[in-house]
């Protein structure tokens, strides 16, 4: 394959690529709230068990 035909194929590939919209992020609001709830649960149970350990000592 010579250099010219290689260049042509690259242009072809560029043309067939789907158009992407830049700077559009997925909304992660629901995920964020779920993660915070799970985190709060883990922290609360951790301190619950830790408190039990301290009070029994």
């Amino acid at each position: 394959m010579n250099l010219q035909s290689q260049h042509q194929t690259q242009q072809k590939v560029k043309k067939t690529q789907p158009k992407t919209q830049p700077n559009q992020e997925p909304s992660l609001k629901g995920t964020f709230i779920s993660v915070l709830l799970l985190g709060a649960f883990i922290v609360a149970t951790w301190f619950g068990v830790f408190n039990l350990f301290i009070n029994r000592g």
Partner: protein
Amino acid sequence: MHLHRYEKIWLMLGTGALALFIVILSVNAFAMGMTPPSHMEMIDPKKVDQTAPFDKPGLKKIGPNEYELVMVSFAFGYQPGNVEVPKGAKVTFITTSKDVVHGFQIPGTNVNTMVLPGHVSKITHTFDEPGKFLILCNEYCGAGHQIMATHVIVK
């Protein structure tokens, strides 16, 4: 690598929580001496009766209202049994097993350790309230496991 703003926040919170847990546990362990029961000391399980301090099991006063209680665990009991200590006593239990794996637990307290043959288990507890505290075996050790128990009487 591109990260969503929310992803950055929850990764920071998660890492922060882990760091907080480790700091609290480290302060507890290294500054306040709240470590798990020791299994660091070794002993020949066949010669428990001849090895100090287990050749003379019992309660020993080591300071003002501070005691060491050397106990031998065996199938199915503890020697000595029914020990009396005054209220507020800080008791360090030192125990080992002559035969199989036993448990050593005082329900409602942090005293809970495995007693392995060949290892010495140490655990300290301060008895602030008077009462009769049950010591029981919580590792199945044989046909008489359910009768393996004794008491600490705090007066």
